[in-house]
């Protein structure tokens, strides 16, 4: 009996020892410091060029810009409240755009939302984020323009430090896109592309494709009190030619951007969202069950 149990016990002891060593090794590995290359990787280190806020980049000699956008701004709706929209006039849409126009009109006539993605916490995305009816903070540095929007605190950067657009093979699509700007006389010209197209609409639900691009011609007027941006938007998959739209913002020296989050559970309290509608229906169903219960007993 002794002779037959010996090998098994030795095997078991070896297995326990192996497990203990592996556990100790794993523990040690987790607490060990990162290699420099791993540290750089996790910090999103650029390959060969400075970040926009690097002191060395900020200190580079550049011509003085013709204006400074730094300030708090609010879209000018004094002419019409509907100036938050980018049309009409609209370009000649292809099939998807035409369908969206029809479906949006039908939904509105029926009192229903259409492509209400913002109401489900999807980002508004460019260009709609620019004209949401909330103040926007803009900070202009020599290397970049940073925008923080009051609406859900969406964030946008326009790089001015001479970098090119990211290689399309590795660019990550986003709702506000990748913006690269340069100065042309008294105008800041910005090209933005690489957009996430999922649940990303313009105006009442007009679709965009991954070929959507925006050129903005940005100027300051009225001694720096008015910001004007001319939008030139192209999307060869969705409309013919260029879609033009010009908007203005007014400097707001007595305003700030608060923290604003879009939360799914908040939307359950808002009857105009789909989640809010579902919550009302659920309460009604539960109430009906409660009222019906005594009869059922």
């Amino acid at each position, binding site marked *: 009996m002794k002779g037959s149990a010996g090998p098994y016990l030795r095997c078991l002891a070896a297995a326990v020892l192996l497990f203990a060593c592996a556990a100790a090794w794993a523990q040690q590995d987790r607490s060990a410091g990162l290699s420099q290359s791993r540290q750089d990787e996790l910090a999103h280190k650029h390959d060969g060029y400075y970040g926009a806020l690097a002191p060395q980049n900020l200190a580079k000699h550049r011509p003085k810009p013709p204006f400074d956008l730094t300030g708090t701004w609010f879209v000018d709706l004094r002419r019409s409240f509907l100036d938050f929209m980018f049309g009409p006039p609209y370009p000649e849409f292809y099939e998807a755009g035409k369908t969206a126009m029809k479906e949006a009109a039908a939904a509105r006539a029926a009192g229903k939302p259409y492509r209400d993605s913002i109401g489900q916490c999807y980002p508004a995305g460019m260009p709609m984020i620019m004209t949401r009816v909330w103040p926007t903070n803009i900070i202009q540095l020599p290397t970049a323009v940073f925008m923080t929007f009051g609406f859900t605190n969406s964030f946008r950067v326009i790089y001015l430090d001479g970098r090119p657009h990211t290689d399309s093979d590795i660019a990550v699509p986003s709702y506000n896109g990748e913006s690269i700007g340069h100065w042309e006389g008294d105008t800041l010209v910005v090209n933005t592309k690489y957009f996430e197209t999922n649940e990303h609409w313009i105006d009442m639900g007009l679709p965009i494709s991954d070929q959507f691009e925006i050129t903005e011609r940005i100027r300051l007027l009225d001694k720096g009190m008015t910001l004007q941006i001319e939008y030139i938007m192209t999307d060869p998959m969705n409309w013919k030619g260029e879609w033009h739209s010009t908007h203005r913002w007014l400097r707001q020296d007595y305003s700030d951007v608060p923290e604003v989050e879009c939360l799914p559970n*908040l939307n359950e309290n808002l009857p105009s969202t789909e989640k*809010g509608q579902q919550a009302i229906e659920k309460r009604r169903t539960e109430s009906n069950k409660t009222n019906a219960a005594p009869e059922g007993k």
Partner: protein
Amino acid sequence: MKATKRVIGSVALLLFSTPAYVHHSGAMFDLSKEVQVSGTVVEFHWSNPHANFKVSAMNPAGQEEIWAVEMNSPNNLVREGWKRTTLKPGDKVTVTVRPLRDGKPGGQYVSIMLADGTVLGGEQKR
């Protein structure tokens, strides 16, 4: 021809436009109607981008219904006298809303009469 295009454009604008002071479509609300709901506050959320509250009220059939009331942002509401402490559960109020088109118990806030008779709101601000 140009005039016709302008008319079509205007109609399209009216059809498609949504009130952007809400962060989503406002198509569910009947902006041409206002209804009053008297009841008891169940909960009140003083939050961005929209404050909101719920009121328990009796429907014409004598059954309790919970009305969900959607408001503007606190920053706007402060201008008409609202505070984080304006409502608490159990308060008796009468609220005026633009109701949901489908008849469900919910609406967009217009004004409110508090238990002490104070009235807040009442104007569509633009």
